């Protein structure tokens, strides 16, 4: 950093994130830097907080500590190879990121995956949703001193990560969905493993709810805190459970279905109060709905091809390479040059555990994307922290940060 860089003063902070509210006793306010090394900011988020006593007057998020230039790097890789970068965005639900990017690529190419691939994609993204919500619930409760919930949540998440390892060979950075289908078919143990999960997990959700639902400390620290009205939430671009907690019934899986979500029966939990507690209720209910979706998907999981039959996009199976010259050529072309996507741009949104995850993809006719841009829910939600935390105590700020469920990997990209 150069010598001319100076820390913001209270006045400069106010000028930058003007709030338009009357400020009394301004000369007695103090400026507190919360983070980047702070356990309850869920990563390296830094918040500049202007305090009047212990109440928050103003707040400015300072991000970028994890900036890795994912969008720039992806421009230099082929469509298939760029996929691995998407896992690193929202590292708590890499399956959702994979899906958002892959659907954008498939939309640009104009191909439709096979029914079996779509069903497996839905099972795994809903599993990822549960895994992500478990981390959210655990850390959110831990922030408010409910330690046992954290341990229980991570125990069950471990089971889901084991399933991911079984199908993709990786616990977290899965890169399992590929343009035109999947990396490989799921192993034989996959189905019994999911069935077993469906059997034992409902009792676990009931356990978590029993620990928190009637816990007076939990209720005190979540009810009426960080209220966002429906109008504010729409204006600030909030999506996912954070939007639905404010009473707006909008879920991309229902409104603009993808991957065949329109054929599944599930409800969208909607809150009314728009506070931390409403967002907590929405996410808890979502886990039940995810289980419903997985159960329906398991019943319709039929044998069949996992990849589309287009050798210009999907590499040929290993067995063909020994006796087909054409297969060898396709294999070679796909792994050296990649496939060419048409000129044009698409925007594909998926409902990630945190909200709307969207991928803007521009092709220029070549094998590499000309521009990739990710609209990540956490990045947008961070901007609404100032309106949520006006006038609350510093301790409540911790619960507000937890309630919008941010992941710094996808904020900074």
């Amino acid at each position, binding site marked *: *950093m*150069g010598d*001319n*860089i100076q820390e913001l003063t209270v006045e400069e902070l106010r000028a*930058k*994130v003007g709030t338009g509210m009357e400020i009394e006793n301004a000369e007695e306010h103090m400026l507190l830097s919360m983070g980047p090394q702070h356990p309850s900011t869920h990563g390296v988020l830094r918040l500049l907080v202007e305090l009047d006593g212990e109440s928050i007057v103003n707040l400015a998020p300072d*991000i*970028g500590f994890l*900036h890795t*230039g994912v*969008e*720039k*790097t992806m*421009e*230099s890789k082929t469509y298939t190879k760029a996929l691995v970068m998407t896992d690193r965005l929202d590292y708590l639900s890499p399956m959702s990121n994979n899906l958002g990017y892959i659907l954008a690529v498939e*939309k*640009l190419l*104009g191909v439709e995956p096979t029914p079996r691939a779509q069903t497996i994609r839905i099972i795994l993204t809903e599993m990822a949703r549960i895994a992500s919500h478990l981390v959210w619930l655990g850390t959110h409760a831990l922030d408010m001193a409910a330690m046992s919930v954290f341990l229980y949540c991570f125990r069950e998440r471990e089971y889901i990560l084991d399933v991911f390892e079984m199908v993709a060979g990786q616990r977290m950075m899965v890169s399992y969905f590929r343009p035109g289908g999947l990396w490989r078919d799921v192993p034989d143990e996959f189905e019994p493993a999911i069935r077993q999960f469906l059997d034992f997990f409902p009792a676990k959700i009931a356990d978590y709810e029993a620990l928190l639902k009637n816990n007076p400390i939990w209720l005190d620290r979540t009810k009426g805190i960080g209220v966002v009205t429906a109008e*504010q939430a*729409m*204006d*600030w*671009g909030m999506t996912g459970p954070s939007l639905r907690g404010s009473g*707006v019934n*909008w879920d991309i899986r229902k*409104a*603009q279905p993808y991957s065949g979500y329109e054929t599944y029966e599930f409800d969208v939990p909607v809150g009314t109060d728009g506070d931390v507690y409403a967002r907590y209720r929405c996410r808890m209910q979502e886990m039940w709905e995810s289980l419903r979706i997985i159960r329906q998907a398991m019943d319709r999981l039929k044998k069949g091809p996992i990849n589309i039959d287009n050798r210009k996009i999907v590499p040929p199976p290993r067995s063909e390479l020994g006796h087909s010259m054409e297969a060898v050529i396709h294999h070679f072309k796909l792994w050296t040059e990649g496939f060419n996507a048409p000129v*044009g*741009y*698409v*925007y594909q*949104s998926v409902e990630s555990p945190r909200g*709307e995850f*969207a991928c*803007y993809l*521009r092709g220029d006719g070549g094998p590499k994307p*000309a*521009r990739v*841009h990710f*609209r990540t829910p956490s*990045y*947008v939600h961070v*901007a*609404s922290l100032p309106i949520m935390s006006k006038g609350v105590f510093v301790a409540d700020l911790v619960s507000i940060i937890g309630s919008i469920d941010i992941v710094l990997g996808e904020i*900074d*990209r």
Partner: protein
Amino acid sequence: MNADQRVVEKIKAAFPDAIEETNTFRGEQTLFIRKERLKGVCQLLKKDPHLSYKFLSDICADDYLPEFPRFAVSYHLYSYDNNHRLRLRVWVDDPEEGPETVGTVWAIGSWLEMEVWDLMGIRFQGNTHLRRLFLPEDWQGHPLRKDYPLGYEEVQFSFNWQEVDAKKPYAQE
């Protein structure tokens, strides 16, 4: 009349010269808007009760180097009432004179513009909050531009071929 046609007609009625071009690719509608009319169009799209694009999903910019105009800024809008997505696209020749800010139309607008400013260097008129967001405050350049090198080696284009070539570490005899 479907939602695609309705939005075009509404804009044409209010701003006859605003739409430069329309196209639909893979079922996604794009309206190319004249830069000076952008803010007016955005206000209309949000306030009109039959359109009500209340959700600004995303703002992102493209760099078309070496073409001219060089930059394109895309606004992805969504209407909860009509369940309709719409993309507005604005051509920008000079990055210092970008489109007018939409932060006054949608509250999230100025936050999304900050990212475009930081990584692509397009200055949105009237947005006073523009600052380095992801990069350090003393950073030079805007990395998502096509003439910004990826890593240690500068990208070699036809217009700077000789300049980069002169610096290349070729094997010596």
